[in-house]
């Protein structure tokens, strides 16, 4: 238990820090409509780190950080200039080009370096799990400084992001504040990508801010909602990663995505006036019924067209209710199928036993000679082949059942789901 706690504490604290700063920056990024700017800046800074690496600076040394920072600032200058070019082409175009070119350039460079592939992978998935107390303190200080800087000059920063034209008319130096925004943003992203990886940092940046924007217009309210939902999504993602044995970064990104989906789905229910809540709820139920009926109608059609193909909906039904398949097989066929599944499991265990014997012989007891190893391998292979044979029998029985289900199950399910569609579809239209 203490191991679990010690494994999850620092990653969770780091996730909270990441949520804190990125939700705020995300509100700016969404408003400026430069969604992929974090990828571009992260990639430029990675290019700088790669150049440092090629010149012999150790990763995470002062030299490496200096190069990364210099490249990031150069990227900030490029992005600042790109606002002026944005007349005919959207600014996102330049952001995309910066990202793609710096990624490709980094590839060209690391091609010659050891750990090159690892370097690129690290950039993508990060390693939130290995955050330690030093990383945490460093992140807290850095994000705190950037946050304080933005709080101090909040009026300027918000003005150039939200009302650039008004700010220009009032004589604000747009380019200076743009540059300061991109530079501070780049400094944050450089550190956070090293910790969380590009995919996760993108989620931290965009998703909580988007949920905030979905429900509120005031900045403070957006920020509060984003922080709340970001914390919730981080906890769920980390929890799921631990409980279900999943890679942490990927689990968290999916948790953030699910959070956005749910927030968008329930929005009409939450924001509707009290008097309309019932109607909206009814509309939801109708929509759900339409979706289920449509899926059932399509899969029964597919079952009639190609009974031997994959049928995920039917698989799901049979897994929870075996009778759906068994009803279409004779007693002898069911027996054959049960025998096959029993034998398949038996052969799997035998093969596993032999593999275990070989593994143990590597380090204790009598050594296996090459000849003995080859003989053992050929037995293992035979068991695996026999298992495959039994799996094939099971599949054949399934296909036999599917051919019989094709019309007998396909026509009634299609009829019922079409009837449901016919009844519910008009109801749906009456709801707002």
């Amino acid at each position, binding site marked *: 238990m203490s191991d*679990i706690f010690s494994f999850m504490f620092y990653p969770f604290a780091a996730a909270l820090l990441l949520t804190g700063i990125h939700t705020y920056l995300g509100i700016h990024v969404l408003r400026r409509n430069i969604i992929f700017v974090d990828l571009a800046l992260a990639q430029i800074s990675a290019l700088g780190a790669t150049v440092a690496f090629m010149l012999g600076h150790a990763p995470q040394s002062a030299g490496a950080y200096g190069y990364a920072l210099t490249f990031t600032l150069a990227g900030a200058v490029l992005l600042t200039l790109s606002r002026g070019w944005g007349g005919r082409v959207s600014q996102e175009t330049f952001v995309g080009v910066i990202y793609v070119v710096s990624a490709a350039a980094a590839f060209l460079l690391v091609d010659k370096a*050891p750990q090159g592939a690892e370097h690129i992978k690290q950039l993508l998935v990060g390693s939130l799990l290995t955050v330690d107390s030093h990383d945490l303190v460093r992140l807290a200080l850095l994000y705190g400084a950037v946050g304080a800087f933005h709080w101090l000059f909040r009026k300027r920063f918000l003005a150039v992001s939200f009302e650039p034209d008004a700010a220009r008319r009032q004589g604000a130096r747009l380019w200076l504040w743009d540059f300061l925004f991109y530079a501070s943003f780049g400094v944050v992203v450089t550190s956070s990508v090293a910790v969380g990886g590009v995919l996760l940092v993108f989620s931290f940046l965009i998703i909580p801010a988007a949920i905030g924007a979905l429900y509120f217009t005031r900045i403070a309210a957006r920020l509060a909602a984003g922080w709340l939902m970001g914390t919730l999504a981080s906890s769920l993602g980390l929890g799921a990663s*631990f409980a279900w044995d999943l890679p942490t970064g990927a689990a968290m990104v999916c948790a953030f995505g699910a959070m956005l989906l749910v927030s968008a789905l329930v929005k009409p229910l939450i924001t509707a006036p009290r008097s309309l809540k019932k109607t909206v709820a009814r509309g939801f139920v109708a929509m759900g019924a339409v979706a289920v009926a449509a899926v059932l109608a399509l899969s029964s059609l597919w079952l009639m067209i190609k009974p031997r193909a994959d049928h995920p909906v039917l698989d799901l039904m049979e897994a929870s209710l075996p009778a759906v398949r068994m009803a279409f097989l004779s007693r002898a066929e069911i027996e054959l199928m049960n025998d096959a599944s029993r034998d398949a499991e038996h052969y799997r265990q035998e093969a596993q036993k032999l593999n275990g014997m070989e593994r143990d012989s590597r*380090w204790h007891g009598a050594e296996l000679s090459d*000849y003995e190893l080859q003989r053992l*391998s050929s037995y293992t292979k035979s068991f695996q082949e026999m298992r495959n044979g039994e799996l094939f029998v099971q599949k054949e029985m399934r296909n036999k059942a599917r051919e019989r289900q094709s019309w007998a199950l396909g026509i009634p399910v299609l009829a019922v789901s079409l009837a449901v569609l016919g009844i519910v579809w008009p109801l749906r239209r009456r709801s707002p």
Partner: protein
Amino acid sequence: MLFCLLTSSLPALAAGKISVVATTPDLASLAREVGGDLIETVALTQSSNDPEAFQPRPADVIKLKSAQLVVRVGADFDLWLDRLLSQAGNANLMKGAVGYVDTSAGVALVEVSAASLGTSGHAHGAGNPHYWLDPHNAEAITGSILEGLARIDPSHGRRYESQRNAFLSSLGERLKTWEARLAPLRGVSVIAYHNAWPYFARRFRLNVVDYIEPKPGIPPSPAHLARLLGRMKDEHIRIVLKDPFESPRIPDMLASRAAGAVVVLAPTVGAVKQADDYIGLFDYNVDALAQAWAARR
């Protein structure tokens, strides 16, 4: 550029040397031991890169066009060679032709599986491909290379054979010293980053109990890491093996929490500077392991 590449391979032809292309630096090193100065050998993958994740480039096709012998690891390790060979269109190097050597042919592989693809029942039982990491397997590997060289250059068959025998006898001598140095580690439990060391473990009687990444390329889950750490503490596992291409972050974390040490082993010739040929590879690896074991807390 094409012209430069073509001319750069000319000296080999001019000197009348047999041009050999190996997929990995290990096979190139072993081919050099058999062929001596009668052959000119290049490795397609560089030691600085992970050979399994290799991305072929145009120059590789040109190397294969002019080569007389190609030597591959096989066992699904260097599948990318198939496409390169068909692009190069060199009839002598095609599977089964005189200039084609798959060194896995004579090796007893571990972890074979009969992975039937769909209902066709087509089996390809590859097995773990890191077999060159058992020095004992050099006998079978150099045997395949010798056969290949004797096929395309029969007039020097005797010389290849005696060069191979000389190499094998000095390797045999070294193997005795290596086994003696690693004798204290017999039966010792270790954790590895990937499942790349079964042959090495089998030769030197190490017990690789688990891996940081059981599925290569998929980051480990926190639950898996907690299990690993628990095992390291309970079973007093002191050593975590990784290669120079693998990220040090997780091995370092595990080692520091379980009072263990991370040992960087070279999986291929040239992966570290000291491992400059096949014998140097084991010199380095044996040394690194023995030192880490002696210095354990």
